[in-house]
């Protein structure tokens, strides 16, 4: 893309366009391009072909720290609480994550704590059947915190390695629903004091700058420990994740790359940064 070009402001303008087109956002983009310009003026960057690798490395390094490993419980089941806005891909991601966790023979129990949306429990039940794992559920309209509590206690009693809890989609602007999510977390803590060990925020890669608001508000409500970015198999680049990382300091742990059970990957910051320039 930048071979045989002069290292000048027009090259920087093209890089800026690539970042903006990938949803990196104007402020983060300006900060990154300023870093490039500073390195260029200080003669640390001399050739045009070094600019993109330099920029990729700046982005990778922002995303890499903290690693991408799941937090594990010291003993008993590792409880994973999954949350995020409507339609981001939570239920499907849980279906994929379950198979991923089962690779080493781990035993997984699912909790269907979305008791509100039409056929949400049926949807997760199909994923539990595809994985051959048990699912804890109650009647439509039941208290989501009660289902979460049941799932964790059942997982503990049956010696499960993981309990993964699905919650209803909610917009971070819905105060009562954010309070409901806080309550689910508190109740899960009652069942197992260190739980939830992992709180995954599912973010749709097609989202623009609002992803940053989502991350801030969900983090405030329930202390997010990892991000699962979905739909990276489309043309969206998920660039808002750079600012999300800068804002809440939480690492991206998983990537969704499709609608099937195997379409999950562990997050690779270098690959993510490189894709911004494809």
């Amino acid at each position, binding site marked *: 893309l930048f071979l045989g070009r002069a290292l000048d402001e027009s090259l920087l303008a093209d890089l800026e*366009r690539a970042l903006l087109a990938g949803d990196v956002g*104007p402020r983060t983009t300006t900060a990154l391009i300023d870093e490039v310009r500073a390195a260029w003026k200080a003669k640390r960057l001399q050739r045009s072909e070094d600019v993109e690798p330099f920029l990729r490395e700046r982005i990778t390094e922002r995303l890499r720290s903290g690693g991408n490993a799941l937090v594990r419980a010291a003993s008993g089941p590792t409880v994973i609480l999954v949350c995020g806005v409507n339609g981001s891909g939570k239920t499907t991601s849980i279906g994929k994550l379950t198979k991923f966790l089962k690779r080493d023979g781990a035993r997984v129990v699912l909790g269907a704590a979305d008791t509100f949306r039409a056929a949400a429990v049926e949807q997760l039940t199909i994923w539990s059947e595809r994985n051959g794992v048990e699912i804890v559920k109650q009647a439509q309209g039941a208290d989501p915190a009660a289902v979460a509590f049941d799932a964790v206690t059942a997982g503990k009693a049956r010696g499960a390695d993981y309990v993964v809890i699905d919650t209803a989609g909610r917009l971070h*602007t819905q105060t009562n629903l954010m309070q409901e999510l806080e309550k689910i977390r508190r109740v899960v803590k009652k069942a197992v004091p260190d739980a939830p060990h992992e709180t995954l925020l599912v973010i*749709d890669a097609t*989202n*623009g*700058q*609002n992803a940053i608001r989502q991350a801030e508000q969900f983090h405030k409500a329930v202390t997010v420990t990892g991000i699962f970015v979905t739909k990276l198999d*489309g043309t*969206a680049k998920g660039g808002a994740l750079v600012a999300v990382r800068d804002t809440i300091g939480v690492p991206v742990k998983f990537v969704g790359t499709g609608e099937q059970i195997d379409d999950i990957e562990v997050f690779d910051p270098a690959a993510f940064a490189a894709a911004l320039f494809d």
Partner: protein
Amino acid sequence: DSLAQRFTRLFAGLGRSKLTPANIEDGVREVRTALLEADVGLDVVRGFVERVKEKAVGLTRLDGVAPADQFVKVVHDELVALLGGEETRIRWNDRGPTVFMMVGLQGTGKTTTCGKLALHLRRKEGKKPLLVAADVKRPAAIEQLKVIGRQVDVPVYAEEGGRPEKICARGVAKAIETGRDVVILDTAGRLHIDAELMDELEDVKGKTNPHEIWLVVDAQVGQDAVASAREFDRRLAVTGVVLSKTDGDARAGAALSIREVTGKPIRYVGTGEKLEQIEPFVPKRVAGRILG
């Protein structure tokens, strides 16, 4: 802060003196940043900013109104003009049921919007809709539409498995047979770059000749709005857009991008998860939120 507040600061030193090309540049830079933060498409921002500059320079000959307020008005009016200005009433079919086809990327709110549209048409237009479950892939998608159908008291046509275009054709036939005057096809979410699935949508269109093909777009969508809307429109000749999840705080710049790039009007906005929560699109409201 809102764009208006930023302009007020920018032009604070000018008092009642005129806008000059130099200070318009600063204002224009603020507009560009604000629109990008609001997720308006990159190329759409460029074109929009050029038009604002032209109109603002034309204004420097006017006196009397504070420069900041003049500038805000130019930007606001330009946005409203772009977003609105089109007759968007539904044209009912007089030779059989009016067919609506709902399409879009995964998770944008199509199924929910189908339910909202069915309820709206039943209650507000006295129609007798039939919902058709054309998503045979997503786990429990058919069940989801059936539950929604019960909630809005509208029948649902569904088949277990089979091809979407055949199910939709039989759904339309069923509507004719049972005296339903509206058919709403709920298709599966898909990527605009999935050629096979985009072909499938063309097949559904070919078999049912929809009068309205609405692209359901998530208000939170970023730069990807342009590529996806363009491709859905290229393949299907979309007749309208529904912007969902506007009850959040996403600035919804996609509304501007899609309108600009496809020329298609936004017909309705989704304002919540409940099936009553759909409203006709009001350009001024979306213009206001894009400007923050």
